[in-house]
């Protein structure tokens, strides 16, 4: 068991794992790491199972003081990590000694970083997960974001560290986000569908772990209709009456009452999760078979690493 002191928490740092996928029928959001791929990769680098709890930090990283030896890996956004003031590489395991301090600098690329520790962060499971869900103040560390003075307890690990020569490149600059047509796509005017797929949408500052609010060409329905509430899934794109799309992310509500024009494919959720307010995205439509193949490929990539 090792301990880590949080000297500075960063703007928005929470404990996340793969979330709670089995309570949606009770209205419980799934939650978990926004960039599930980066979180799984970080865990893999330190020999953890993919579902181990790690830190997710947005826009700025935390400053951590290590009270014991431990190894960690940083993935996701590049925020210029430094160990005792010296720059270190991301996407690979790094061993620290008692008294070492990990910090971060300026945000260079992406917006969400992940920090996994060998042995995983130890907090109680709530509904089968360690993920922080702020709206219900549950999971993680007392259901809240980290603050200065917090202590993180890390489980023990006898796993050998895996050293990699080539870190996984994940290109965050790509603007294209692939989608599948949603259940209500045909309720939209033809030109609305054309705008949706052929013009850029900007991510608004009101975006958070629950949803990304977008701004761009207005998406009109053929005729106004009031929809009966129905289910949502990760990446569902809803269009409320103002015609501006909303993409449902990790902490999404399980049901919604707005027409669903499209759904971001699971393989592109990690990329979208690295987009920040002001970034532009373009949607491109793919079919189910292609979407699933892309997802399976991404998962196979993580799996192959483990062998």
């Amino acid at each position, binding site marked *: 068991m090792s301990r880590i002191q949080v000297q500075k928490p960063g703007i928005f740092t929470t404990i996340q794992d793969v979330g709670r996928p089995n309570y949606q029928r009770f*209205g419980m959001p799934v939650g978990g790491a926004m960039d599930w791929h980066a979180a799984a990769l970080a865990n893999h680098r330190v020999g953890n199972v993919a579902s181990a709890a790690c830190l997710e930090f947005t826009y700025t990283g935390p400053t951590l003081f290590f009270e014991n030896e431990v190894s960690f890996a940083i993935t996701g956004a590049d925020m210029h990590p430094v160990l005792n003031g010296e720059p270190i590489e991301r996407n690979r395991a790094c061993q620290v000694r008692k008294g070492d301090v990990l910090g971060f600098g300026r945000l260079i690329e992406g917006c969400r970083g992940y920090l996994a520790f060998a042995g995983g962060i130890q907090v109680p499971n709530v509904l089968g997960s360690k993920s922080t869900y702020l709206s219900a103040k549950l999971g993680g560390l007392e259901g809240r974001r980290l603050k200065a003075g917090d202590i993180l307890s890390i489980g023990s690990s006898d796993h050998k560290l895996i050293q990699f020569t080539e870190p996984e490149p994940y290109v965050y600059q790509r603007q294209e986000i692939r989608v599948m047509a949603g259940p209500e796509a045909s309720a939209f005017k033809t030109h609305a569908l054309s705008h949706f797929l052929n013009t850029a949408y900007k991510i608004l500052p009101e975006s958070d772990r629950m949803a990304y609010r977008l701004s761009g060409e207005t998406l009109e329905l053929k005729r106004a209709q009031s929809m009966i509430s129905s289910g949502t899934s990760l990446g569902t794109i809803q269009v409320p009456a103002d015609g501006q799309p909303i993409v449902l992310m990790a902490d999404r509500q399980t049901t919604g009452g707005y027409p669903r024009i499209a759904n971001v494919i699971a393989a592109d959720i990690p990329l979208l999760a690295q987009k920040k307010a002001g970034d532009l995205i373009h949607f491109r439509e793919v079919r189910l078979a292609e979407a699933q193949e892309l997802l399976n490929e991404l998962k196979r990539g993580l799996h192959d690493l483990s062998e």
Partner: protein
Amino acid sequence: MPLGDSAFIIQVGDSISEENHSNVMGLKRMIEASGQRGIIEVVPAYCDLVVHYDPSVIQYVELLQLLKSCEAGMEFNHQPDGEIVEIPVRYGGEMAMDLEELAIEKGMSPQEICEIHSGQQYRVYMIGFMPGFAYLGGLDQRLHAERLKTPRIRIPAGSVGIAGSQTGIYPLDSPGGWRIIGRTPVRLFDPVFGEPFLLKAGDIIKFRAISGAEFTEIQRAGDE
């Protein structure tokens, strides 16, 4: 119909009704009973259900096959198997922020409103919006009421409210525009101790009017 690459929707009807609800729940049971690997969860709504699955374990076409056999084997309009859940409510007092005003609007006494509201049974059609929030069917037409023009910043957990033709209970402190007519001391969502969720889709709710003293007593018992 796919809802992204890891979920799909099965449409059972296009209106809110006891019959559609019963068919949704019947199909949900059949799919769950199949024990099919790769199905993560079946989430019922008013007239459709969403099946979440892992496409690296099961193919969409295989799921469609399974669904066909479930539909074929399903008895429509069978007896729903929800439980009856009694929920004590303190109507009136300072917890019922909108009761007086609603009574005036409806030309009734607050007492009459409580009697109508607690004199009925309500089916839980679905849970959504927030953890443990039940969408109920069956509100008496005489109690249908517009939402507040300006939603409140914080409605305390347990508040019982009316919005349009719906009635419901807030499981968590939350902002909201429902007209609040009472509060229950019972916890609808308790993730750490005991049963995390009091209600599930298919249950039947009966509200029972209680006094302020009883409210305190039940609340104290719940805290212990």
